[in-house]
């Protein structure tokens, strides 16, 4: 799926790139792909539509820099938009002027409320606070026991009583005041968002302890329903933030975007593992990359760059066949090769080449010299190296810090390369008659069989000339 996405993007943007600017059609085509990627990451369908609408608007109105590649620009806009939604306002705790500061946790069954109640308590301890945990999950067997065992590990007291969660919660509040604890964290039973009675119950708990902060605990593996679930909890409890759990899974975690967008409250904390210290403030930029599939997006950008280079190379190849390949083209290609990193690394990644040894220093140095020589030439000299005489050679050598012999060598190699390349450009058309066993005999004139690429070449005579030099 994602590799398809990558190649589709390259195609779209290579086309767009040649036109130099993004057209609405291109954006739509790209957004169709982004839409699928987001749904695949479990972002709610409605949220995806809204999101893509916003990105489309951005893309159409944003100043598009000609110098930047369009893929990067759109991905950047998508990423910025994601971060804007996920981050928006960042979360910070304001403690109640009259302690305790009350925190209520609510969410579906199995989202991780109990574990995260203790993790949050530990976080408050690190902030220099003295929390009290209240077990108001009297529904699930042994839930309070679980809370006590976990809290015991980090010596945080737990309060719970009876069978009525509302009484347990308000009892906990009294206990916190009595003990002088300045933060109270109330764990509640998991409940279904569509279970009206249970939702009313958590509403009553909230009323009894009037929390400063109500957190919705959300499973990063959550699916499409995350949006409606978050909405129900928000309607009942007026959420202040989201705690995102189970981020140690390989889920893309799009549910958090659905919840964040639906309730409009920040994601405060993220839980990244089973240990109590696997808990931190939420980082929107990391999450944006994860939802998009960061690795994939990077690949995407690389792939697109590759496609651009390929397009440039193709254009150079056309000029090569036309005999108009110049030292400028040579320089471009050399720079592209150098951009890919050390030659040994490049070869190492090619199948069967890993055993080959390359002296990076000397080859790099040679490439650097070649670049310097070409850069010391005038545009005319680069276009038509034949005009380089002794005095020009002298000047180029001095300018590039090389010798005249180096300059001559480069020009010679370039001419040979050009000749070789242009002969390669002809090869396929020569191969046909050769098959019939008439080597070097009758030759097929290119006129009837020219490919479209060659058809618009300016100088056919020139072609014929190259042809003859090659066959003789």
């Amino acid at each position, binding site marked *: *799926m994602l590799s398809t996405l990558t190649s589709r993007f390259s195609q779209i943007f290579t086309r767009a790139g040649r036109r130099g600017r993004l057209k609405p059609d291109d954006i739509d085509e790209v957004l169709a792909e982004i839409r*699928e990627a987001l*749904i*695949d*990451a*479990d972002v*709610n*369908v409605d949220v995806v539509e809204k999101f893509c609408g916003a990105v489309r608007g951005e893309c159409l109105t944003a100043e598009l820099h000609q110098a930047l590649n369009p893929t990067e620009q759109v991905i950047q806009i998508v990423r910025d938009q994601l971060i804007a939604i996920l981050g928006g306002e960042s979360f910070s705790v304001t403690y109640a002027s009259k302690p305790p500061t009350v925190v209520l946790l609510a969410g*579906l*069954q*199995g*989202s*991780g409320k109990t574990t995260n109640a203790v993790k949050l308590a530990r976080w408050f301890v690190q902030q220099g606070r003295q929390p009290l945990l209240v077990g108001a999950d009297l*529904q*699930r*067997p*042994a*839930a309070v*026991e*679980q809370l*006590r*065992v*976990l809290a015991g590990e980090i010596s945080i007291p737990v309060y719970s009583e009876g069978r009525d969660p509302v009484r347990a919660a308000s009892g906990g509040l009294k206990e916190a005041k009595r003990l002088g604890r300045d933060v109270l964290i109330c764990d509640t039973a998991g409940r*279904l*968002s*569509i*279970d009206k*009675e*249970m939702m009313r119950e958590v509403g009553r708990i909230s009323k009894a302890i009037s929390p400063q902060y109500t957190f919705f605990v959300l*499973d990063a*593996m*959550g*699916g*499409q*329903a*995350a949006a*409606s*679930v978050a909405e*129900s909890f928000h309607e009942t409890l007026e959420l202040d933030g989201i705690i995102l759990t*189970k981020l*140690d*899974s*390989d*889920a*893309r975690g*799009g*549910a958090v975007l659905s919840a964040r967008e639906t309730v409009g409250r920040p994601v405060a904390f993220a839980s990244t593992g*089973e240990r109590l210290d696997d808990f931190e403030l939420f980082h929107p930029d990391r999450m944006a990359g994860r939802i998009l599939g960061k690795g994939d997006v990077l690949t995407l950008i690389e792939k697109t760059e590759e496609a651009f280079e390929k397009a440039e190379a193709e254009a150079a190849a056309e000029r090569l066949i036309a005999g108009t390949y110049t030292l400028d083209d040579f320089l471009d290609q050399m720079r592209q090769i150098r951009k890919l990193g050390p030659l040994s690394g490049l070869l190492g990644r090619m199948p069967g080449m890993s055993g080959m040894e390359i002296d990076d220093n000397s080859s790099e140095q040679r490439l650097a010299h070649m670049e310097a020589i070409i850069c010391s030439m005038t545009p005319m000299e680069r276009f038509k190296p034949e005009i380089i005489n002794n005095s020009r050679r002298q000047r180029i050598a001095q300018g590039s810090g090389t010798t005249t012999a180096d300059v001559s060598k480069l020009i010679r190699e370039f001419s040979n390369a050009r000749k070789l390349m242009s002969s390669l450009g002809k090869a396929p058309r020569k191969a046909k008659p050769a098959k019939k066993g008439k080597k070097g005999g009758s030759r097929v004139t290119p006129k009837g069989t020219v490919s479209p690429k060659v058809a618009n070449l300016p100088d056919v005579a020139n072609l014929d000339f190259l042809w003859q030099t090659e066959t003789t």
Partner: protein
Amino acid sequence: MPLFRRRKQEAAFSARTPDSALASDHELASDSTQAHLAAALVAIKDAKLGEDVWLEIERHLLSADLGVPTTHRLLESVKAEATSSAHALELLRQVLVNNLAASTSLSTEGSPAIWLVVGVNGVGKTTTIAKLAKRETDLGRRVVLAAADTFRAAATEQLQMWAERVGVSVVHGSEGSDPASVVFDAVEHAAANSADIVIADTAGRIHTKSNLMDEICKVRRVADKASGRVAEVLLVLDATNGQNGIAQASVFTEAVDVTGIVLTKLDGAGKGGIVLSVQHELGLPVKLIGVGEQITDIETFRPEQFVDALLSDAVLSDAVLSDAVLSEVSPMR
């Protein structure tokens, strides 16, 4: 009165969408799927079959967590044949049902038969085991539970409390003890007491943690060596979860050779559409569904019910109960 029962009774009346609730029985009879369809799908039913209709259907399937590839795969097969919007919806229902049809029987081979219950954290393994224990006990089988979740605090206590309610025995180790040895002991205990089934609760584990996956492999290996036979390895999937279910299913299958899926929390807002991908890609059938918090809220998976709930705005527990109402008026059932 327990909450779930009360909701079910309300559901019997509300299962018909507001539109159809006003319709006479005659109208319903002439229209096989109307009573089940989500409002959005009802709205397109009489529209001219075109791009808008397909988009609406696609949207609905994606909202039910079927995922992009599966949604497209199913729509392709429907698009090829559909002649009208109503026909498309009918075909879709059939294709969905066909894609889910499989044997739901649970093997009790072996003395005792060993059922391993596995899954990621918080999907409802322990509750499912309690329900299974109740169900099998009611069928006259002798059940022993193995409390092999030795990691999560108070997991054993949770299972013990359930076991007390059901009236079955639990074999457990101390917290942090080796889960494989707990399973082994439970199986030997069951064999000595000629019990029929050992149901093993295991710790929730995220499938990306290789050490925990190694541990569950070991549990399975040791169980294979004990008396009796590993008859079922049930993977519990949470219906409110999304596309990660496919990764969970494939990694767990590779590790412990899963034999079937238990889809839990279908009484919530999630539709559990991921099981279509799981069945298609891994050939894993859904065998059981969890539809509530009460000890009896476990049902054998029935594709028609599941699909009807998936195509409706109602939750499955409503659909289960509305069966009685609809079977009288729906020629499709």
